């Protein structure tokens, strides 16, 4: 009992109040720090979880989504789930689907977005083909049986935007030497990321997978300009044009880089039948003397 009994009780009360208040504030602050750090980890966007159509970009989505599950209820195919609290990579209670097990069926009336009370799912989206839930990527050419030379095309045929989101490229099969490869090629300007292709892939582990756009797409630097597009926009060259390249070719012969290859003009002004004569002189010195590069 050697406390400072001479201190007035009013002051002691104030001290106690301050200490109590600080205690609460510090405790809650510590808790907040933990929760804040945890919140970063809980929104790291796992590759195999896709958001419903019309979803805001990841980051904004978790800020807007109120976690009510109305989209889950409105989905007629029951593909959507709400993230569990133990789901370390996805914000608790936010909706997702897994393409491999339950892909989006691309309903024309997009019922899942109609009742969203926040901007998390864009109600303005009126064409499901405009949605971008993710992007299909042919992740493994070593196991895709189209690349092995077999006819498959399951992903191409199941695609709801068939012929646009996935096209087939025909290529020579160098292994057999006499067959064609029918290779599926995904186009990001049409692919909605519905996941029907991944769901349909016949492999044990799909060779074509849908990833969130952030993971599937590259992005040019913001300062990047494509010269030919700028040129077309401007209607002419924006910089001093390059000096035209001259090939060391005899008179009457040109070379076109963009496909036509060697062009031999008919000096007489009329087509020659049969195999054209070689424009090259039998004397190599003539070629050297003709050289435009040799000009002083």
């Amino acid at each position, binding site marked *: 009992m050697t406390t400072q009994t001479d201190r007035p009780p009013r002051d002691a009360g104030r001290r106690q109040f301050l200490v*109590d*208040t600080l*205690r*609460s*504030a510090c*405790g*809650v*602050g510590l*808790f*907040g720090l933990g*929760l*804040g750090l*945890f*919140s*970063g980890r*809980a*929104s790291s966007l796992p590759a195999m979880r896709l958001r419903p159509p019309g979803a805001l970009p990841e*980051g*904004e989505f*978790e*800020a*807007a*989504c*109120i*976690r*009510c*599950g*109305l989209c*889950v*209820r*409105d989905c007629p195919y029951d593909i959507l*789930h*709400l993230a*569990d*609290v*133990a*789901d370390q990579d996805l*914000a*608790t*209670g936010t909706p997702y689907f897994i393409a491999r097990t339950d892909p989006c069926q691309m309903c024309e009336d997009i019922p899942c977005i109609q*009742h*969203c*009370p*926040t*901007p*998390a799912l864009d*109600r303005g989206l009126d064409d499901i083909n405009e949605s971008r839930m993710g992007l299909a990527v042919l992740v493994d050419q070593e196991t895709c049986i189209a690349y092995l030379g077999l006819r498959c095309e399951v992903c191409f045929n199941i695609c709801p935007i068939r012929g646009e989101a996935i096209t087939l490229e025909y290529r020579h099969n160098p292994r057999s030497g006499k067959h064609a490869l029918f290779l599926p090629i995904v186009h990001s300007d049409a692919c909605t990321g519905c996941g029907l292709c991944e769901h349909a892939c016949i492999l044990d582990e799909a060779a074509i997978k849908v990833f969130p756009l952030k993971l599937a797409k590259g992005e040019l630097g913001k300062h990047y300009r494509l010269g030919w597009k700028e040129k077309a926009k401007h209607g002419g060259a924006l910089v001093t044009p390059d000096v035209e390249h001259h090939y060391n070719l005899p008179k009457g012969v040109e070379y076109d880089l963009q496909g036509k290859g060697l062009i031999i003009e008919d000096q007489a002004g009329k087509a020659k039948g049969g195999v054209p004569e070689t424009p090259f002189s039998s004397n190599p010195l003539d070629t050297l003397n003709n050289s435009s590069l040799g000009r002083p």
Partner: protein
Amino acid sequence: MAANTQPGRKKRESRGWLAANRWLLLRRLSQVGILGLFLLGPLAGIWIVKGNLSSSLTLDTLPLTDPHLLLQVLASGQIPEWSGWIGAGIVLLFYLLVGGRLFCSWVCPVNLVTDLAAWLRRRLGIRQSANLSRNTRYWMLGLTLVLPPVTGTIAWELINPVSLFHRGIIFGMGLAWTVILAVFLFDLLVSKRGWCGRLCPVGAFYSLLAWKSVWRVSARRRQQCDDCMDCFNVCPEPHVIRPALKGEGKGFGPVILDINCTNCGRCIDVCDQDVFEFSTRFKNRIESAGDPVTEGGKASSS
């Protein structure tokens, strides 16, 4: 000590079990009924209410949204859709009228858990309780509104036991039960009425809506109080009772005006002397001892 471990025993013995548990039964009916409405859809295919307590749609027309969550969405920089605004407006108006923390005792599913913990605590005679300020919840409330702009996400919703539990019951529990178990054990062993009464920011938010709410418990026949302490023992926020029950000399009216009264009506249930009743904040006149209302006693219950 018997009164301590079993508040309401006296009334139960004199007036029967039903009389001593009337409001409790109605409250459980309300809590379970609301869960039932949400569950009718997924379990029986009867879609009356869709969604959960965060936001719901009743009969495909009536939107209801948790205003505390809407505030967090706003704090994170997102503007809700009109249905979100309307839903939150309806909920706000309702609780402004009936008392915000009516949500806690009549709707919130976590109340079932913390009430169980409190009951067990009484029965087991656990007296120790960590010294947590009842104002901590307002710091927590502040935290839920500061975290969204700082982290860019509704961080509180990652672990909010209220929405975790409700969502868990309706959409699948997952590991949410671990958080609920933590709340239960915290209330049972660490702090008496610790979660709902000291920490929960959801309750703290709803308590603010009770600032001028009409629907109130009144200690109208406080002269009949025989100091059995049953109401204090059973009340989840016992500090709210004292001014109304014992403050007549200090000029306090009989109506419990504290914003943290949850309108659970447990005090009405357990009081053998029929001191308490549901009333409105306007019936807060200080009546003299000779008032016919107080003399009439039990006959004038409404």
